[in-house]
């Protein structure tokens, strides 16, 4: 006899709220102007965030689950989910100002964005590989569309590239999933974690193969070298508000998936960590070296996103308690600073190709507010205190260092120095006086963008001075040691 699964609506609520936004954008798009839809979606996102806050389980409480553990509303999920919500809200705000100029002001833009967010939340809340896979694909598919939505050669080309490499990555990931299933006979994180303890040698081989394929698949999604090649092209080819979304929310979600899978399910599986550290090393070298030679600011940010992937991924090498906390902190900071920087690019660029680094010269004398904000973002991206990016990097180093990856930490230090150099150039150019005419798109009111930038800059400053405001929440190692669920 079949039994109906347990459906608990409470842990689903944050996701359902976002999904409701997606659906309403799809349906109401024919009747309402896009701006109204965006307001609705913003409200729903905030509600979703509140719902997550209400799901927070204090010490001793058992986190809510649904579908027999397939969906875990544990604290890790909530923290990552909140980060996603923050990034999404910033994306939507920026799109309010810039979508029309970018020629993506369709209701579909909002709808796809919300679908993608639904997917990202599913990943963060996933309790087994299937849910994770569904979330990952919902997110990826919607992102492919977002990248292509603008009717221009650049966007279409970036969309195709994204799609081809992304789907290849998914296929590899799914095959890895199949192998892990074959080795352990379970698809739930808890089941896998349990089964990895005592495996026969034959199954161990399968497990290692599966884990490596999963790693490669996730490598595509988060842009770890050598699977990163799509990133710069897609980020610089897509409309800037979409790049913002792709480089923050989507990346956060992919890391959430990685954390769940590698930090939770495959925590005790052998060998993947060794492979991961090599990938990270390659990412750090390639990402930072390539950024040094970019002349286009948006493209440079794209490469810097690759470089940051390397730093973020270092947290995965830490013990779950320490690494998870570092990841939780870094991802929020990364979201804030990247989103704010790209929001400024979106507001000031003349074309969707972004601006050249040399165009930034003298920005301080034309748009002092934006220039200071951008400088703060860049300093934070470079990891300079007192901005929050420093603590992110610090925690990442600490996680890797304390788990014995000393040489990787030293490499990361060298990479950070290279990173500083390329962040420094645009940051300093902005303050150098310049007499040539402005190269920015100077018209229009941008209240929403300004709000986003203010949010981001305030966030990275306050969290840099008082990291405990966020780190205090994520720091509890118990949160991250339960990633696999029970």
């Amino acid at each position, binding site marked *: 006899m079949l039994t109906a699964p347990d459906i608990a609506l409470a842990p689903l609520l944050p996701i359902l709220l976002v999904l409701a936004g997606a659906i309403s954008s799809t349906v109401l798009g024919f009747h309402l102007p896009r701006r109204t839809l965006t307001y609705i979606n913003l409200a729903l996102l905030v509600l979703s965030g509140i719902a997550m806050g209400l799901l927070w389980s204090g010490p001793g409480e058992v986190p809510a689950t649904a579908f027999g553990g397939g969906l875990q509303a544990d604290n890790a999920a909530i923290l990552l989910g909140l980060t996603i919500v923050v990034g999404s809200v910033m994306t939507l705000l920026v799109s309010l100002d810039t979508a029309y100029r970018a020629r993506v002001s369709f209701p579909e833009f909002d709808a796809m964005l919300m679908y993608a967010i639904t997917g990202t939340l599913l990943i963060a809340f996933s309790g087994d590989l299937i849910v994770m896979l569904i979330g990952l694909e919902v997110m990826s598919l919607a992102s492919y569309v977002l990248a292509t939505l603008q009717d221009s050669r650049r966007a279409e080309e970036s969309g195709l590239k994204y799609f081809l490499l992304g789907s290849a990555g998914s296929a590899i990931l799914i095959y890895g999933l199949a192998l892990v299933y074959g080795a352990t006979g379970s698809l739930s994180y808890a089941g896998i974690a349990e089964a990895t303890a005592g495996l026969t040698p034959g199954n161990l081989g399968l497990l290692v193969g599966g884990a490596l394929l999963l790693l490669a698949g996730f490598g595509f999604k988060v842009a770890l070298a050598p699977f990163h090649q799509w990133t710069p092209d897609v980020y610089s080819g897509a409309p800037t508000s979409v790049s913002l979304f792709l480089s923050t929310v989507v990346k956060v979600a992919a890391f959430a998936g990685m954390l769940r899978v590698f930090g939770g399910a495959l925590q005790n599986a052998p060998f993947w960590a060794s492979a991961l550290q090599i990938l990270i090393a390659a990412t750090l070298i390639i990402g930072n070296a390539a950024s040094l030679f970019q002349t286009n600011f948006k493209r440079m940010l794209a490469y810097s996103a690759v470089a940051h992937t390397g730093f973020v991924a270092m947290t995965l090498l830490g013990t779950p308690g320490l690494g998870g906390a570092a990841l939780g902190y870094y991802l929020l900071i990364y979201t804030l600073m990247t989103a704010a920087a790209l929001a400024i690019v979106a507001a000031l660029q003349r074309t969707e190709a972004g601006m050249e680094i040399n165009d930034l010269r003298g920005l301080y004398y034309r748009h002092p507010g934006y220039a200071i904000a951008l400088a703060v973002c860049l300093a934070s991206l470079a990891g*300079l205190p007192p901005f929050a990016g*420093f603590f992110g990097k610090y925690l990442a180093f*600490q996680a890797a260092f304390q788990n014995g990856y000393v040489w990787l930490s030293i490499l990361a230090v060298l990479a950070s120095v290279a990173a500083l*150099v390329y962040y420094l150039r645009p940051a300093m150019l902005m303050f*150098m006086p310049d007499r040539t005419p402005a190269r920015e798109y100077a018209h229009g009111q941008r209240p929403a963008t300004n709000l986003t930038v203010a949010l981001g800059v305030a966030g990275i400053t306050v969290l840099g001075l008082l990291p*405990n405001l966020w*780190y205090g929440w994520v720091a509890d190692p118990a949160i991250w040691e339960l990633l696999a669920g029970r």
Partner: protein
Amino acid sequence: MIHLMIFLPLLGALLLLVTPRTWREEVAGFVAALTLGLGLWLWRDGGAALYSAPWVPALGATYSVELAGPSLALALITALMTLVAVIYAARRIENPGTMLALVLAMESALLGIFAARDLVLFYVFFEAALLPSLLMLAIYGGPGRMRALVKFAAYTLLGSLLMLLSIIGVRYYGGSPTFALRDLVANPVEGTAQTWLYLGFLAAMAVKLPLWPLHAWLPDFHEQNHPSGVPDVMGTLYKVGGYGLFAFALPLFPDASLELRPILMALAAFTALYGAWIAFRQTNWKRLLAYAGLSHMGIVGLGIFSLNETATVGALYLLAFQNVYTGALFLGVGMLQERIGSVDTRVGGVMTQAGALSGLTMALWFASIAVPGLAGFIGEFSVLLGAYQVAPWLAFIAGLSTIAAAAYALTAFQTTFWQGRPLGSVRVADLRQTEWLVLGIPLAVALLFGVYSAPALNLIQPAVRGVLSALGGS
């Protein structure tokens, strides 16, 4: 009180952003003076005791600050020189709001560096000071500033990130609950790990000391900065490597410091001689001063690395007061540049038209080349004396640099201020209004502490004794 002293300048900097343009100089001066006043008050009270509060408990980072001993001395000097710089900047720079804000922000970070008794906090202040100095260079710098910027930032960050790893390692391997210095000292790291961590720490401090071969950023940095010399004063103050080594590296890595002493002392001595030698060949006042500073820092390094009480006291003394006269000299160069439009050392004949300027500059130079009776002498002499007890030959090599210093300083001084004024050149005005103060106060301080060193020594000596006795004495 101590918190107010650290953060008051930063508040002032923020205040400047909203102050009407006409009042900015006054506000900045007031804030700088107030900070100095606070510092003096602290001095009168015998320094501020250790204050410690959790900052990021989950991380083990604390907010621990203390101003006593050498750090108080350095903080006072910082406050003093900031005030001098503010005074000069207000007169010299057109619409100086941004510059003043940056100077004050930097002062905050520097005070923080000296006050911090927690490694993470120290690191944060250490890096935070970088930002204003970078911005000053970017906004007011010369044509080649991008290169200088990149060099400066890259060197600094390379060192400090390696230090960051060491910081992580010190706590991790030692098993200390927090990053507060007190806890770290109580949970020391043993064995070879200590040496490696010391090297990481040293990387940052050697860049900031600076020590050969990590000094390459220094001349470019000074050369490209605003000609007034105001940013250079702050840059000089930012050379905190000696202090960092004394305050953190020695207590934390006693065995390693002992183990590496010969190598490091040799490097420091070489730096001193090398700086002096290169300075001798400079024709640009700013580069010359930069190399002169490098040479002094070599001597400071020699003192610190020697682990000898006399030498260490002398090194800290020198570190504190060379800021005064080197800073003032940079400002003097700024005045010269304002008058003749160049920082070349071969303009000639300035003395004939601007006697006061030349005279004060020469007096400051005497301080710099360690003429007895001025503050520089006490420092350099103690260092050489102490170092001689540890490594006579190295002390001798370093001692050569003092002779070289006399040579380069006098040569450059002669070609600039004496000789005949070239025909048809602009007439050089003498000191005006606040410029008297700008050069006079530092000279007065150098003179005072050159003659009556007890107050400063009283601050420095107990601390040094404490640190070195923990090392097992030598």
